[in-house]
């Protein structure tokens, strides 16, 4: 019986590059090809002005967004980051971007969405993160919460939502758009929801649905995830 890795020198990899490039490989890396938004046939490719641009970003967030947020929305384009997409709710003139967490492309996707952020009257960003990423000196206070909600910037609609404190932060497309709106001094609200379980289930979705509804986003009252045929035991 062997013990893999035992006695082997484990050389740490570089911290500098998210996409696993090492210092001696950097010179030979080919530049990335440019990403584009993939529009539906016949769809207008010019950025659309909206009353509100909503960005919901997180790992495995697509199913929740599809079933709770996008029922009456029209698909505008696919965003080149895993299963991400942009939708329009024509009755309220809300644009909704559902963004799967993909840090490799998040800087470039942010640049693609900035024209929409520029034309929007208001921007709402919600970043969903696992609860284990949340840092607090009083962490035991939150041990029974299914979700911890904090605002990061802007004029929060609900004054009961406390501000996020350092050293916590958000990253990704939602972070890029919120940061840009903040620096351009344009109205925005940015929130982070730390959830107990990912992908989110019916219980952890509660605080997220409440936050969306309080922010004036059309969203169903409850979320029932599709039943999975297999267990998570070997996944």
């Amino acid at each position: 019986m062997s013990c893999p890795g035992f006695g082997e020198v484990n050389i740490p990899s570089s911290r500098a590059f998210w996409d696993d490039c090492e210092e001696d490989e950097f010179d030979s890396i080919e530049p990335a090809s440019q990403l584009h938004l993939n529009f539906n046939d016949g769809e207008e490719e010019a950025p659309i002005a909206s009353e509100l641009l909503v960005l919901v970003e997180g790992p495995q967030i697509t199913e929740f967004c599809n079933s709770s947020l996008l029922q009456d929305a029209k698909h505008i384009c696919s965003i080149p980051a895993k299963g991400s997409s942009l939708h329009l709710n024509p009755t309220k003139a809300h644009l909704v971007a559902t963004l799967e967490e993909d840090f490799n492309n998040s800087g470039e996707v942010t640049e693609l969405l900035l024209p929409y952020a520029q034309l929007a009257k208001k921007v709402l960003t919600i970043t969903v993160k696992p609860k284990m990423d949340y840092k607090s000196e009083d962490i035991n206070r939150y041990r029974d919460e299914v979700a911890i909600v904090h605002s990061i910037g802007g004029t929060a609609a609900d004054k009961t939502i406390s501000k996020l404190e350092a050293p916590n932060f958000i990253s990704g497309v939602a972070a890029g758009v919120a940061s840009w709106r903040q620096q351009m001094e344009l109205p925005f609200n940015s929130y982070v929801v730390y959830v107990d379980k990912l992908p989110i289930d019916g219980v952890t979705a509660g605080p997220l649905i409440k936050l969306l509804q309080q922010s004036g986003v059309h969203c169903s009252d409850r979320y029932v995830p599709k039943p999975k045929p297999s267990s998570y035991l070997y996944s």
Partner: protein
Amino acid sequence: MLLLKDKSKSLNVDNYTVIIPSICVGNAAQLACDLLIASKKLKRIGSLSHAALIPVFGPSAYQHEPNECVASCELYESKEDKLLVVQFRAPFISKQTKRFQHEFVTLLQAARRVIILSGSFGFERRLIDGSPWAYRATDKFKADHATQLGAEALVKWKEHTGEHIFGGGNALQLYKAFEDAQVPSMLLFRYLLEGDNSTDATLIVRELNELCGDFLQLRVDGDAGDGSFKLTMPSSWNLLFGNDVTELLF
């Protein structure tokens, strides 16, 4: 994309000293820049966004500017000392980094001098009793700092001549890009290991201050002449190693 708080479209770095951290082992260079920014109470003047940078947004990292928000690449300035400190808060996307580097060097080309801080894996240090510091400097930088870098008795650092700095991120490539642009530049790095690198950060600042005391101005007014100075730990260093262990474990 350059976003400055005063809404101007270009960055004026004429006659400025620019300090840039590379994203290195233990994030020591970024921690050193954190110490510099917090200790000298540098003013945030703007940020840079680029496809090579993972966007970051969050509450202020420093107690002296509580209403600011952090971004993935930020610019901090001291007008009196003509000092600009860049801070990175996210790793790079390697496929986009060369383009970023090119634009970054163009932006800072007018600087009087550029100092890149970095670190390398401790096990890359071949001589155990040798100096834990190494540097590279352009001819112009060496000539400008001949008193400090020219005197062998004073310089404890070893001049690096290798092709790579393992664990040093893009420090060497960035240094070469500044060298090609004929900006007087120096790359200073320390051999270190992952762990609590706050001490390494302090040592980097101290070492830098030995060379650049004239513009860093970190010495406390009226000190005892022992070269001691006070460093301020930024609020973002709180919980550097995560939360307390949950009570539920016991």
